[in-house]
């Protein structure tokens, strides 16, 4: 297992490398010029000033955008290796503080969201599997599918209208104090819980039909022990996979929630930066994201081995 891990970590380095090159290329292929976007259109002499093309050239040179692509990439890579993420075009200031300020809010919201997702999904999933085709099952199916079919902004805004505007119980948005975690956390959890509940239910159903479960029952073991010891372990694999996948997507996944609740997270930053063609910011976040993705997938693989001893990695 240890050898496997080390090999995987070493293999990760060229993969991250490849990701940065691919993203760099795609970024520079897309239409849209960050400097033109920075200057904007139609600020009309107010707040921006009138611009002519010579200024555009000056600004492009400031970020080295006038240089050939491979030189730009090599420079960027050289800086990254030294720990310098460069300067944002939009914010005209270093990239790392922009990211650092948003790391903790993103992680905290993800934790709260997952916590709520688990709290919702596990009981519902297990009960619906045990009581298949009962009212509870249908309720849980409807509940979980509702969470993933309704647009996130709809869920969010309905909650805000109810809990903030009508009842004044919670702040509408932003991040200050535990109260502001409630609604965004719930919306995140609710939207994640849908897929998780269904996966738990389906895996359990599958396992409950297996012969060895019948064998265990026939041996006279208490229902509960049967389920916990045998069913869970085998049902766990797809559930663990989903966990890993969600973890990998947390950096960019919750843009909508962050926008609706004005949450200072990385999802919104990467989205805005893509719109602004803010290359340094996007590249830095993608780099971080790649590390998280690889880490999440690797952990999932290790957990597989832990849950199901039959799984061997060569």
């Amino acid at each position, binding site marked *: 297992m240890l050898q496997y891990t080390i090999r995987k970590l070493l293999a990760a380095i060229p993969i991250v490398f490849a990701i940065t090159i691919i993203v760099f290329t795609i970024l520079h292929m897309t239409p849209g010029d960050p400097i033109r976007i920075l200057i904007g259109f139609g600020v*009309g002499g107010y707040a921006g000033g009138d611009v002519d093309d010579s200024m555009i050239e000056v600004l492009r040179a400031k970020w080295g955008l006038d240089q050939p692509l491979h030189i730009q990439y090599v420079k960027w890579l050289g800086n990254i290796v030294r720990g310098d993420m460069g300067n944002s075009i939009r914010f005209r200031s270093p990239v790392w503080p922009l990211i650092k300020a948003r790391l903790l809010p993103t992680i905290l919201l993800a934790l709260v969201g997952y916590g709520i997702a688990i709290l919702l999904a596990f009981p519902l999933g297990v009960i619906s599997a045990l009581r298949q085709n009962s009212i509870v099952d249908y309720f849980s199916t409807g509940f979980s599918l509702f969470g993933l079919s309704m647009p996130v902004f709809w869920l969010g805004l309905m909650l805000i209208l109810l809990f903030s505007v009508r009842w004044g119980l919670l702040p*509408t948005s932003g991040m200050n104090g535990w109260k502001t975690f409630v609604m965004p956390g719930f919306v995140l959890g609710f939207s994640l819980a849908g897929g998780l509940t269904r996966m738990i239910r389906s895996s359990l159903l599958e396992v409950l039909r297996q012969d060895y479960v019948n064998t265990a029952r026939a041996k006279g073991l208490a229902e509960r022990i049967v389920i916990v010891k045998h069913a869970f372990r085998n049902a766990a694999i797809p559930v663990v996979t989903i966990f890993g996948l969600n973890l990998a997507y947390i950096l960019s996944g919750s843009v909508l929630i962050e926008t609706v609740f004005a949450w*200072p997270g990385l999802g919104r930053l990467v989205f805005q930066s893509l719109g602004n063609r803010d290359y340094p910011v996007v590249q830095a976040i993608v780099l971080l994201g790649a590390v998280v993705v690889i880490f999440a997938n690797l952990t999932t693989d290790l957990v597989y081995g832990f849950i199901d001893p039959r799984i061997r990695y060569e």
Partner: protein
Amino acid sequence: MTRNLLRCSLVVGFILVSLACFAQEPQYGGTLYTAGNEPSNLNPILLTDGPSSTVAERIYETLVCYEPGLTGFREGLARSWESPDELTWVFHLQESVLWHDGTPFTAADVKYTFEKVLDPATGAARMTNFAQIDTIEVIDDLTVQFNLAAPTPFFLDDLALIGHIICESYTEAVGMDATIREPMGTGPFVFDEWAPGQYVRVVANENYWRGRPYLDAFIVKVIPEAAVQFAALETGEVHMIGGSMADVSTVEADPNLTVFLNPIVQFVQAGFNFTYEPLQDLRVRTALFNAIDRPAVNEAIFYGYSYVPNSPMPRMQGMYYDEAVNDKYAELYRYDPTAAVALLADAGWTDTDGDGFVDKDGENMHLVILVPSGGVELEQISVILNTQFAAIGVSSEIKTVEFGTWLDMAFAGEFGIDIVQYGVGFTPALQEQYHHSQGPFNLQFYSNILVDSLLESGKTATDLARRQEYYYQYQEEWMKNPPLIQVVAWPAFTFWSSNVMGMSELPLGQLELIYQIWLDE
């Protein structure tokens, strides 16, 4: 008995009246909250977007300020000024003004600011506005002289709008780049904190030269979603938001909220691409004008708050706006689909193959309507254009693209009609940006020699009457040969909590005199 009653009521009345007067006395204290998008750059000579200027303009100041109603200029950091000749301006600065770090404000700072602006290496977008400045001389600590290379009638306007002064000693000490996130000025508020993605806070300048502002602090909360901004206003979390027209009637009905109208308008225009052959014919362009029911757009999409312009000059630029000419062309550009069809036929465009769309020489006229995504009204207008063009037989398709791509495509001319929107600006100098053949924002590839020369003359004519004449002629020529369809001009609304007092309706926004605003809590 009655006399006692009378005396009692008089006393009570007197108390009530004094209480009322007392209640109107500005109180010190409180924090003003507003919701908006995140600023990106708090250095006034480098910033390029609205949210940034909302904050930066509370920290920094200009030499002169507009009078309300744009009738003239009043003192800013300069208490008086004169222009001995066309090419010289002398400003006498206010005494005892301190920077937020305690150092005195002097003429050296003014010189430093404009030299930095004019230095290409700084990368200040407003460099072109001040390109006419030749040299700046420091006469003494409180007197500074600008020597211009050519007559610049709008010099004071540019100074009032984007001539913010930065501090030489501070900027040299920390570097220009650092001032982007840690600004320091002379204004009524001092920079306190910028929590990325969350809010920016500025606090009252105790030593402000106009007197300490009533408010203790001013905070811009970052709330990107419009519906949530409105919710935050309703719950009292913020005192002010930029409002949407759809909500105006709701807000007016709410006693806790007030609506303010900003007379600055945004023009929404459907620009022609002059490189697309069919549009080069004036009859075709006029026909397209006649095809659009602009008053209906005003009613339906802008709730009647906009007006239908014909002149490229906005109404609020009173001195330069020629109402007579505007009205003269209203008739020519009225909504008249029958006339449109006739004009098209006149120009050789008729439906010869029965597909419902006009064609000439075997090819249909096909207009690509290019819209930047994100603006609801722009998309709605594009749909109306699409429908109404079809009604006169002109085939069109809508292409919505996100802003970055739109910029590329628009500048490359990959469209037939592009829908643009921009704020109209305070001086006619703006017209040059959009309608001069070399203008940086001339997306239409419009090239009209007469227009070009009129604009150039108007920009440098120092005599007001001559200037007006140039701009009047420019409007007439422009309307005879329009580069675009002026769809509507619509104002900006802001919604305020009713307990915010001391506000005035100013063209630059209610926050311009923020030091006069106080909270009644």
